[in-house]
């Protein structure tokens, strides 16, 4: 709609103003579209040469963006790994109503992405897209990061230096696994029968945990003869 190069007269436009406004908007666009926070270093790599800006310019533009968002529903926020735009906390209740009505589903795409990160980590977004044959919605990585099931573990030293993702302890905990090694191997997964067997094994392991917890009190007790199947001979008591 409004041309970014048109500058309000009252502002006494210096020649740099238009350019710095472009920088501010490019930053806003990047932060709104990225599935992870962006660090000053990343932003500098992306924009530094092409816009001829240094890290100081970036910081200044981020400050202007922060001010410009003052009247809006989202705000700029700095977290450990960089900057992101987030919805202000005062609207969180409304957002949670939205998710209660339409919870972000565990879509096929999300499950496949998570599974690929489990089995092929450390893996880049591009590698996931290559295996799945379709582009990945930025929401998926974002959602998995927010759920703390995956994390960025580094970058791949190829052009563009894409992030490498790996799984977290949280995911193992949530799945009830002690280690990823408990998961069936690829050949097992390929064969439906073996997969069923492997799942059964895993299921039994998972169910054993509560049993072990319950065990002591039960195990010590003399078995109640009534509780045993009629076929079993009653234990003889001397």
């Amino acid at each position: 709609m409004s041309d970014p190069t048109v500058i309000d007269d009252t502002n006494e436009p210096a020649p740099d103003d238009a350019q710095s406004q472009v920088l501010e908007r490019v930053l806003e666009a990047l932060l709104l579209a990225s599935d992870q926070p962006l660090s000053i270093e990343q932003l500098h790599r992306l924009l530094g040469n092409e816009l001829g800006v240094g890290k100081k310019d970036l910081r200044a533009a981020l400050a202007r963006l922060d001010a410009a968002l003052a009247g809006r529903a989202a705000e700029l926020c700095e977290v450990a790994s960089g900057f992101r735009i987030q919805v202000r906390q005062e609207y969180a209740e409304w957002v949670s109503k939205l998710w209660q009505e339409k919870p972000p589903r565990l879509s096929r795409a999300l499950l496949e992405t998570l599974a690929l990160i489990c089995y092929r980590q450390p893996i880049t977004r591009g590698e996931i897209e290559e295996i799945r044959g379709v582009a990945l919605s930025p929401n998926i990585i974002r959602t998995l990061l927010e759920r703390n099931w995956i994390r960025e573990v580094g970058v791949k030293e190829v052009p563009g230096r894409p992030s490498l993702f790996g799984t977290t302890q949280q995911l193992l905990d949530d799945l009830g696994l002690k280690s990823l090694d408990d998961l069936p191997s690829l050949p097992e997964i390929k064969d439906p029968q073996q997969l069923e067997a492997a799942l059964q094994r895993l299921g039994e392991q998972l169910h054993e945990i509560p049993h072990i917890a319950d065990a002591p009190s039960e195990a010590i007790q003399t078995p109640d003869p009534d509780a045993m199947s009629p076929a079993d001979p009653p234990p003889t008591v001397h």
Partner: protein
Amino acid sequence: MNDTVSPIPTATGVPKVHGQPLEKLPEDLYIPPDALEVFLDAFEGPLDLLLYLIRRQNLNILDIPVFKITQQYIQYIELMRELKLELAAEYLVMAALLAEIKSSILLPRPPPDDAVEQGDPRMELVRRLQEYERFKTAAENLEKLPRVGRDIFVAQARPEVIPQSARLPVPTLRDLLLAFRDAMERSALFKHHEISREPLSVRERMSRILTRLRQGPARFAELIDPAEGRIGVVVCFLAVLELAKSGMLDVQQDAPFAPMLLAPPVHYQEPEPESVDE
């Protein structure tokens, strides 16, 4: 319209047709031999190939020179067979149809009305080519539309604290494994994908080591948890080798016999405090 001929470069070997070395290719068949496989692979089927043969001569579908096209088409098919390219059955069916059309032209023509009623094979072929071409063009138009993820980027922001009630459900292991199988099966159909041989804990360890190295270089010993015993050392060692092999890690030694330092590759420059979850 004589078909001029061009010599085939000998460096890449001479293709054979009917067991005889094919020394010359008609010019409109000429493709650099190394590109031939890719080229033939690029056809979406016999209609696509026919359309290509017609279009490259700037002819209207309505003016198909049946004899010439049939001849060229069959040459392509022969070439594909000689090069042992996988040839879908549809290509042979089309060859048979073209042959039928050709012979029907050689035979006395039935009265025009009959031709339409009996489903003249030429009529049928022209109709199919036209119909296919429409959708081929429509597909190209679809590809030109802006698409989310390629040209359109949806703005996303969320509250910092996500209300507990609105959290994602935890997937079942079964869901996760089936999803993985589907993804791998699909990719196997696209291309051969190398199958991971390492135990998963190596992959997981690779992730952990990368996370650790973001805080700075480390000695191998620092990466080992003695509580994990020998297996732990082996897994860790394999992970380091794998990372070094894929260029995700540098092994540095400042002086002879100095301890070896493991670090992110040299142009890595993000010293981040990090580690949210550990």
